[in-house]
């Protein structure tokens, strides 16, 4: 039989049993759609996190107290106790290093903000004026924290956009006195709204001078020191020098960890990439299930069409012709299923992007290609057995089944 005739025969056979065909196409398309949507979610999460990290600032080097065994980011960093505090003077000493553009110490804690009888909990970030450009924040109203001696915190604050809205509504905020914890602070600036950021929502942040924050939280240590290098090339040099400087200041003990944004980014990239791969693997199981369903459907087709197979044999069809016809039908079912699933998946990813505009839910190319080819391969592999069974039928027995 000619190839075009085989394909047409298979197509007619598939459309001749719409229910059975629809169900197997549906199963296959759900499998492929699952791969596309789940990997879109996984890869979207990766892109989102990477983008958030990039928005922390550019050419960032972050110093955190405590020592971590590896150079990369480690969740243990967050709970390691440190023998020696990371102080404001430590941060100050880093300002003089070559290749450093800006340095901002950071102390954080939660407190309450109170104005005109309104009270809410807020995240308080103690830092300096340079914190705002390092983190790529912008001032919407008023001005930044004053340039002053880091150890002498004046009683001022810069508040996030959402805090301003909740505390002041339509009234002017600049110049007002608010109570944060047990301090009375004057609002000097309001941050421009940036939306959800990684770790802390900047719209719900209150920024105060670093020494004031330390006094409020009764602590001498810093949460982080953020360093901005002059250029990307300067990052490794600054990192080494910052480590060296702090080691000297801490009497030769390496009790801090210096990480670069690049390293953090790479770690997250790797972590979430692996996650996406794992999710794709899980989704691929549904493809295998769909393949088995296609096999089932084809086995039913062979039973249903036994009489027809007998007829084809009587009319001179060779075993190869019958095998090819059934294999073509299985391949068609999975190909159409894969295509429909791909479209469904892209539609789902599109819907996700519409619902969550900040979330870049695009399926990665490798996942789409792997999903489609797995669908086709399973369809073909699971089509072989029914096709062989059809080709082996005894024509006399088969004809009697009519």
């Amino acid at each position: 039989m000619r190839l075009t005739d085989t394909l047409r025969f298979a197509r007619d056979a598939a459309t001749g049993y719409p229910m059975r065909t629809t169900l197997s196409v549906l199963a296959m398309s759900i499998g492929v759609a699952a791969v596309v949507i789940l990997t879109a979610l996984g890869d979207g999460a990766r892109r989102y996190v990477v983008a958030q990290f990039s928005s922390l600032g550019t050419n960032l080097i972050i110093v955190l107290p405590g020592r971590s065994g590896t150079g990369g980011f480690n969740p243990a960093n967050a709970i390691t106790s440190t023998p020696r505090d990371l102080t404001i003077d430590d941060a100050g000493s880093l300002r003089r290093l070559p290749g450093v553009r800006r340095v901002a110490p950071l102390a954080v804690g939660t407190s309450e903000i109170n104005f005109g009888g309104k009270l809410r909990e807020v995240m308080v970030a103690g830092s300096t004026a340079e914190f705002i450009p390092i983190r790529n924040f912008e001032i919407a109203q008023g001005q930044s924290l004053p340039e002053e001696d880091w150890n002498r915190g004046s009683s001022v604050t810069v508040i996030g956009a959402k805090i301003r809205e909740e505390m002041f509504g339509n009234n002017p905020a600049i110049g007002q006195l608010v109570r944060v914890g047990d301090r009375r602070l004057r609002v000097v600036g309001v941050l421009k709204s940036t939306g959800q950021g990684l770790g802390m929502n900047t719209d719900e942040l209150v920024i105060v001078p670093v020494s004031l924050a330390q006094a409020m939280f009764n602590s001498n240590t810093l949460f982080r020191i953020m360093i901005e290098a002059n250029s990307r090339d300067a990052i490794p040099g600054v990192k080494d020098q910052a480590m060296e400087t702090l080691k000297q200041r801490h009497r030769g003990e390496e009790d801090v960890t210096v990480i670069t944004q690049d390293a953090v980014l790479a770690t997250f990239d790797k972590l979430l990439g692996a996650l996406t791969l794992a999710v794709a693997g899980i989704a691929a199981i549904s493809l295998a299930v769909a393949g088995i369903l296609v096999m089932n459907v084809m086995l039913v087709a062979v039973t249903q069409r036994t009489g027809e197979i007998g007829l084809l044999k009587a009319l001179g069809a060779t075993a190869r012709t019958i095998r090819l016809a059934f294999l073509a039908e299985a391949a068609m079912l999975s190909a159409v299923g894969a295509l429909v699933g791909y479209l469904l998946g892209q539609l789902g990813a599109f819907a996700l992007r519409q619902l969550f505009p900040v979330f870049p839910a695009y399926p990665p190319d490798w996942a789409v290609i792997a999903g489609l080819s797995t669908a086709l391969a399973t369809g073909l592999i699971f089509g072989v057995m029914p096709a062989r069974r059809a080709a082996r039928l005894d024509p006399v027995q088969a004809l009697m089944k009519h």
Partner: protein
Amino acid sequence: MPLIELSGIERRFLLGDTTVHALAGLNLQINAGEYVAVMGPSGSGKSTLLNLLGLLDRPNEGTYKLEGRDVTTLSPDEQATVRSSRIGFVFQSFHLVPRLTAAENIALPMTLAGIPAAERNRRIAQALKDFGLENRADHKPDQLSGGQRQRVAIARATIMQPALILADEPTGNLDRHTGDEVVNLLEALNAKGVTLIVVTHDQGMGARARRQLIMEDGRLKADLQQTAMPNLAQISG
């Protein structure tokens, strides 16, 4: 040289623990252009003989020569090729593919043999005309009457211009009138030189054949040759 030459054919089936001799020691010669009716009670081996002649089944012993060539030793695919080019089948229940149109059903043997579409279409047009099915080409089998279905089946059986047509109770599912039409069609094909072998229960139909093979218990009980055409056809027609 006879068209068909069977010698010492044995066909045994195992039913439970008893062996049934469907065909036993069968010797038979049929010449090209003959019109043969195979008759006999159920279980006499008629259908087994037809399956064997159609290369759908193999004998346990003996040889079957078709056009002088021993076809019992051929591989299944070689037998398929012989079926495709030399043998046409007509079944009692028509055996049309329900999802294909009349024209597509007629074209099926050519499609399977890989004949190009242009040649197929030319032959289908001719066949539709010959069998009076021009207006039924695009009808599915369930939109056709019994007589029309059997005409489609006969058109399909002859489309590859076989030397031999095997008909298994071709009128079994038809009323008297359409049955006669179908028999006339088959006889017209025979008149053009195609060898026709019909398996039938119908005495009247069997009597129309020039040669009758009466089977019983897997053996040939009688082989009746008629020298002249019986006038039964004129009586029933």
